[in-house]
């Protein structure tokens, strides 16, 4: 079967989404919209201290209030294990402190939960939480990861003896030598500051334990992980735990987690024998939903005078915050696998040091390690081009990888690519010389215009277990995906996927794939997701894996169904199964399009078997697949950004943004464009506006949307997007991933544009966020004035 199937060609169409009617009418059900009779509400008491011993907790006043059923603290917990960290890299020691759903004796960051109050009413539990009196003995806190590594630094976890979490390295052993023999070496300190996922729906949990079984609704990207760890930690047999991710209002990695609140509400529900509900406030979300990025890298790039990059070494200090959550430790390593970007660099090495600080833990946020890596390479490369006096795009072209598969020095093999192709297409949309001419004109008006580029590749489609799993990368899980495709008696199709969407459009994209292969309208293909009580075991949605792993599983399960259908039709029409094809909505005999059966007719035979089934065939028409790919997939592209900077105010305006991406074959271009737009704006947020900021005492300064500036519609432009299609050889669909690509690519393009704009003002390098104050200061400093 060809990549597009051989039916009506729904694949590749800009089909509008099947998900949308319920969402645009306000009829969708997110966790907060779900209520269970008899439910109680929970509110948390959280630490206002960044680091302290808990001297005492007095819950009596809270318990005495009307309608309060219970107040629990860490002392009440009877769990034998705490929250999971699922990364155990072979041969590397990772210092892993205990992490409990409620603090036991010590708090390690502002927001650490100290007690939970349970009562009748959502306002009443907040009142009661204010009546819980906690006395703290403050301990010195450390918030700067570099300072945390110094001798004499306060220790986040005294008993571990150090703030160092781990050291992990990958790549060429000879990189120091290679740098020494380079004609030119540029060295930069690249800071990827801390950001928040900030989905517009905060998290929420509703736990209903009764008669030995638990149903847990959670706003999560990974219901199966939540099920497994809830079962293990709370001590309920896994088959008696059902986790449902209903409508999920965005995740961006921040809901790829097993959170203490999920575990705790399950425990409280069992303890009280009542359903219990908790809805995170935005302030809590900023405090305790894991953050991302927070890496400081020393980047050294060496090259020959004529522009051949010969060596790259990045030494990353990664601020993990106070605890290791599900994948905290592995995030910078995900970036390491693509540290050489689109370039053939003979000697590349990445060294990572993880550090504890008294801040909220970091973990996956859209891109998870790869935006940081791309920023390091692409910004440093433009710095190198300036150093060499060479055109930035020419330098890229001289170093592009041209043959695939390409084995990098960083343990992975790129599946396919055409890097000059996306760059050429980008230049059809935007003429850098023209931007340069405009910049010369605008300067007299006090406006600095600049253009920046980013040519990226990234690694996604997590899977494959063989590499990502325990033996190589060290994630303690398989990373395959499953699908079950069920044809109903009347010929409608239900697909159960183990992926778990939060806005991506799985219901539409998967329906298009199935429709082509079974000769039905996508209208008659329903996709069920996010419920561990239905369908096979699955692994959720993250790492741009939905289509290349989950979608391929759907395609394979569908192919099995089509195969059985062909055998049924062949038997009924006395033809050979290999002569049956899907054409015009029917399984028909090749060359005799009149002779055929619709899927509904096939289902009739399968479910009401008279003599129409072959003798050795079971009745029914449904199939399951577990798919574990052979390799990752590597999307790529070329982005350009044009900015105008007001020298008086330091304000950066994005005037144009052009994105050319290649994510392999397109299933639904609308969904691709949507992911690119959103991904790019996520990076615009980091580059220009957003920063999770703690003061030196570990107080979170950006604790609300009034202080943490998500970009609004008025802050960003419309985008110009285009695509090339280089199929991935890894899966039969030929697809890669696109959920994170925009975020991975864009911060470097924006930063390069700002630096380019400010070069005439004497600025040669800047780190994000490129806020008006910092831009203005950089200009003043370059002038030699007092910033």
């Amino acid at each position, binding site marked *: 079967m060809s990549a597009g199937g051989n039916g009506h060609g729904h694949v590749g169409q800009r089909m509008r989404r099947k998900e*949308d009617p319920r969402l645009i009418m*306000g009829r969708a059900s997110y966790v907060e919209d779900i209520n269970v009779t008899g439910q109680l509400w929970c509110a948390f008491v959280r630490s206002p201290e960044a680091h302290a011993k808990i001297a005492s907790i007095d819950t009596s006043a809270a318990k005495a209030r009307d309608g309060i059923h219970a107040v629990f603290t860490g002392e009440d917990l009877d769990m034998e294990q705490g929250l999971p960290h699922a990364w155990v890299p072979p041969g590397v020691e990772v210092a892993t402190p205990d992490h409990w759903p409620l603090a036991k004796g010590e708090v390690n960051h502002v927001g650490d939960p100290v007690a939970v109050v349970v009562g009748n009413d*959502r306002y009443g539990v907040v009142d009661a939480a204010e009546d819980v009196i906690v006395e703290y003995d403050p301990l010195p806190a450390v918030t700067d990861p570099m300072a945390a590594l110094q001798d004499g630094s306060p220790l986040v976890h005294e008993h571990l003896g150090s703030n160092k979490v781990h050291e992990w390295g990958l790549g060429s052993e000879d990189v120091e030598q290679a740098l020494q023999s380079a004609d030119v070496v540029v060295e930069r300190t690249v800071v990827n500051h801390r950001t928040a996922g900030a989905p517009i*729906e905060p998290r929420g949990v509703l736990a209903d334990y009764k008669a030995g079984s638990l149903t847990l609704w959670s706003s999560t990207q990974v219901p199966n992980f939540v099920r497994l760890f809830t079962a293990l930690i709370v001590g309920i047999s896994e088959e008696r735990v059902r986790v449902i991710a209903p409508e999920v209002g*965005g995740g961006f990695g921040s809901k790829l987690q097993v959170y203490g609140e999920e575990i705790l509400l399950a425990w409280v529900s069992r303890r009280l024998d009542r359903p219990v509900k908790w809805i995170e406030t935005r302030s809590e979300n900023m405090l305790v939903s894991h953050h991302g990025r927070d890496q400081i890298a020393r980047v050294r790039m060496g090259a020959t005078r004529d522009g051949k990059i010969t060596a790259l070494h990045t030494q990353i200090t990664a601020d993990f915050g106070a605890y290791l959550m599900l994948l905290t430790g592995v995030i910078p390593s995900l970036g390491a696998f693509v540290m050489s970007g689109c370039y053939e660099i003979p000697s590349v090495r990445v060294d990572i040091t993880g550090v504890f600080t008294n801040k909220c833990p970091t973990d996956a946020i859209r891109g998870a390690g790869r935006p940081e890596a791309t920023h390091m390479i692409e910004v440093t490369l433009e710095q190198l081009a300036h150093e060499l006096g060479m055109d930035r795009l020419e330098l890229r072209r001289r170093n592009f990888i041209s043959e695939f598969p390409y084995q990098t020095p960083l343990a992975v093999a790129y599946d396919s690519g055409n890097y000059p192709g996306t760059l050429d297409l980008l230049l059809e949309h935007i003429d850098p010389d023209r931007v340069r001419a405009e910049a010369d004109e605008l300067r007299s008006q006090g406006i600095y215009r600049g253009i920046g580029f980013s040519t990226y590749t990234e690694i996604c489609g997590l899977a494959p277990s063989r590499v990502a799993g325990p033996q190589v990368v060290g994630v303690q899980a398989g990373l395959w995906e499953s699908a079950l495709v069920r044809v109903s008696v009347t010929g409608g199709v239900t697909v159960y996927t183990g992926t778990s969407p939060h806005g991506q459009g799985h219901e539409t994209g998967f329906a298009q794939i199935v429709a082509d292969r079974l000769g039905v309208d996508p209208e008659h293909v329903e996709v069920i997701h996010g419920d561990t009580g239905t369908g096979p075991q699955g692994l959720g949605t993250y790492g741009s894996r939905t289509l290349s792993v989950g979608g391929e599983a759907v395609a394979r399960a569908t192919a099995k169904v089509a195969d059985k259908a062909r055998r049924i039709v062949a038997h009924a029409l006395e033809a050979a199964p290999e002569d049956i094809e899907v054409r015009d909505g029917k399984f028909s005999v090749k060359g005799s399009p009149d002779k055929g059966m619709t899927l509904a007719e096939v289902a009739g035979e399968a479910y009401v078997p008279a003599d129409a089934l072959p003798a050795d065939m079971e009745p029914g028409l449904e199939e399951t697949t577990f798919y574990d790919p052979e390799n990752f997939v590597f999307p790529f592209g070329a982005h350009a950004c044009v900015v105008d900077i007001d020298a008086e105010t330091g304000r950066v305006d994005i005037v144009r943004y052009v994105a050319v991406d290649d994510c392999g074959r397109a299933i639904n271009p609308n969904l691709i464009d949507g992911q690119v737009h959103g991904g790019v704006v996520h990076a615009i947020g980091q580059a220009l506006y957003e920063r999770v900021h703690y003061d030196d005492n570990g107080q979170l300064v950006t604790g609300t949307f009034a202080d943490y500036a998500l970009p*609004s*519609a008025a802050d960003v432009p419309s985008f110009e997007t285009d695509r090339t299609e280089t199929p991935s050889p890894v899966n039969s669909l030929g697809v890669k991933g696109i959920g994170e690509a925009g975020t991975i690519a864009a911060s470097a393009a924006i930063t390069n544009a700002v630096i380019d704009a400010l070069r005439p003002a004497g600025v040669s390098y800047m780190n994000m966020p490129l806020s008006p104050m910092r831009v203005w200061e950089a200009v003043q400093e370059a002038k030699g004035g007092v910033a």
Partner: protein
Amino acid sequence: MASPVRVTLEVNGVRQSADVEPRLLLVHMLRDKLGLTGTHVGCDTSNCGACTVHINGEAVKSCTVLAVQADGAQVRTIEGMGSEGSLHPLQEAFWEHHGLQCGYCTPGMIMAAAHLLDTNPEPSEEDVREALAGNLCRCTGYHNIVKAVLSAARTRETGSAEEPPPPEEGQRTGQELAREGLGA
């Protein structure tokens, strides 16, 4: 706890009364007392706009209004905008132009956009971006939302059902609330 107060609203054309705590937010009355869960809460500082509804024809962030302040008002929520088979032009346009992904901000976006089109039937792209600056979306990058609103504006020019104007006094209350309570 202060004694409950009787609040009567006309919500989506239906008269609704409830005894509520004086501190109850309008958004919680709509969601928890009246079961209209299409209006969402995304922040606690009136920045995100997911809770935007119409009070006497004005777009208001319902997390910033006490239910008692809205007593006697006409309230319109996303559930009153359109239904299967007779969607509001903005709902159609958001669907057609892929103006939503996770859908959480969408009801508030549609309500804010509807108010824009009521007051400025032929907005420019900049008008739309400014009008929606108080409604945050993390998924779409706004590109397709803006496209959808501009497209709905064009559709509406060719005529569609308008909601009847609110009574004069109600209009004043609505404008007052909008001024006091709109937040960011």
